């Protein structure tokens, strides 16, 4: 069962070495992602996109404000899956064990993970060690692991940016398929505007610093989607125009 993700009035700053003042990344930042919705966050590098993901994952805590995941009445028990830029698998555990360990930690039957391994076409590799797989195969294992916990929330941190475009395209399709099966709530951070248009229900463009929402674009296309849909290219151009508009004052300065 999916649940909402809510950032409410978040402040976050970092102390950098040799910097006189802390760097403010988020100031009174709010964003709500409805249950079952997949929101893509796009913006310039260093604007705070990854900070949002880390806050949602519980890897960092806000200086002010609250991050709520899942059911408001029972927020701490929202099951979380996350796909990172790198697969982040335990190299000394087999593919199957990597998935089983995540399922065990979430209290989910291992059978779901094994079915997902078949779904990502790696059923025959359950006893293989991650280092014996290609980069694309490892990222597919990471996808299977994220969904093997029967997640209410899935966080995606530039999940395909380290892969070649051909592999990335196939994995986007796979991700769409998994999303259709389990319908979790999602937050995707990406620099790839077409990827955002293809995968997301809503695209949030950040400007700043500190990060603020400068534009939100709804993607109305039903799933399963066809990446050749001209609407995606229109959205892609719209995002680029917004990002260029953001960059122009900086260049002028």
């Amino acid at each position, binding site marked *: 069962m999916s649940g909402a993700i809510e950032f409410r009035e978040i402040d976050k700053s970092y102390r950098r070495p040799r910097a006189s003042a802390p760097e403010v990344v988020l100031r009174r930042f709010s964003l709500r992602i409805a249950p079952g919705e997949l929101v893509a966050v796009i913006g310039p590098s260093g604007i705070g996109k990854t900070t949002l993901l880390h806050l949602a*994952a*519980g890897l960092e805590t806000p200086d002010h404000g609250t991050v709520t995941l899942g059911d408001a009445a029972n927020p701490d028990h929202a099951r979380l899956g996350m796909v*990172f830029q790198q697969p*982040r698998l335990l190299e000394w555990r087999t593919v199957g064990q990597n998935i089983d360990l995540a399922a065990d930690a979430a209290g989910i039957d291992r059978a779901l993970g094994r079915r997902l391994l078949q779904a990502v076409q790696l059923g025959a590799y359950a006893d*293989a060690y991650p*280092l014996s797989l290609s980069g*694309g195969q490892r990222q597919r294992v990471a996808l299977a692991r994220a969904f093997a916990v029967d997640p209410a929330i899935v966080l995606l941190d530039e999940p395909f940016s380290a892969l070649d475009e051909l592999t990335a395209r196939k994995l986007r399709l796979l991700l769409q398929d998994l999303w259709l099966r389990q319908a979790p709530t999602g937050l995707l951070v990406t620099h790839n505007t077409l990827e955002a248009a*293809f995968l997301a229900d809503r695209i949030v463009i950040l400007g700043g610093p500190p990060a603020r929402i400068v534009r939100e674009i709804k993607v109305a296309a039903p799933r399963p989607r*066809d990446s050749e849909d001209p609407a995606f290219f229109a959205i892609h151009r719209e995002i680029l125009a917004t990002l260029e508009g953001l960059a122009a004052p900086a260049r002028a300065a």
Partner: protein
Amino acid sequence: MTLAAEPLRDSQLARSGPAPAAASPDAARPAGSPITSGARRALAAFGPPLAFVLLLAGGWELMAASRPSPLLPRLALIWSELIEIVGSGDAARQIGITLGRIAIGFALAYVIAIAIGLASARSRLAKSFFDPVLVLGLTVPGLVWALLCVIWFGLSLKTSAIAIALGVAPPLALSLAQGLSAVDPQLVEATHVYRFSRRARLRHLWLPAITPYLLSGARLGFSFAWKVIVLVEIFGLSSGVGYRLNSAFSSQNVEGVLAWTIVFAVVMAVIEYGVMQSIERAVTRWKRVAEV
């Protein structure tokens, strides 16, 4: 990009050939007679050291035959001494006593090393505090620890245990601290995101990650421990391989000294190659699979 038009099939991504579920170094071996290739491998592994031992024995025998002296006993004399100490069961008894002392010293060293290694990996202050201690521990010769412990603790089990622990703990602690620092923080993050319990993190992340470092520290420590225990047994104990070596030395029994040295060297080789390296191979199997 054309995504929906393509099926989920991923044959272009998957590596050709069978899944590496059964991947092992053997998988890369071309088809052929397993007996022939097994014999070839055994010859490659044991041939050179065996050739060295034979050459050494031949050279010794030549020297002993050309300069007859009680200081250079012939191989036959050394062999008969060896048969006597092994056949009487004395070799097994004394090796057992010495190994037991090493095991106690090692256990103590592990306790000290884990405490110092964990503290050094977690805190810069602790690392600065312990660094001089570790450097001192690494540079002090085993002979000094052996002498000091005999002086301080006299003829007791404490002597060998503490002398070994003082010498073995520094390399172990350094290896442990290095291993802990080398664990990828991104993996640690992933286990937090997936809400691994403390026990699961320890068992599936920290222990496998630091095991190669612990093993390399243990191997260093083991070679140190052998030297120290022999010295302690020579100086201050009334049993063990070191004591027997000293007894043979006191009675000018050169073949006895050599026979005990051979027993000692064989046991060391068995532990190094048969135990330590086997454990290392087993726990780092995942790395070798990737190299195939």
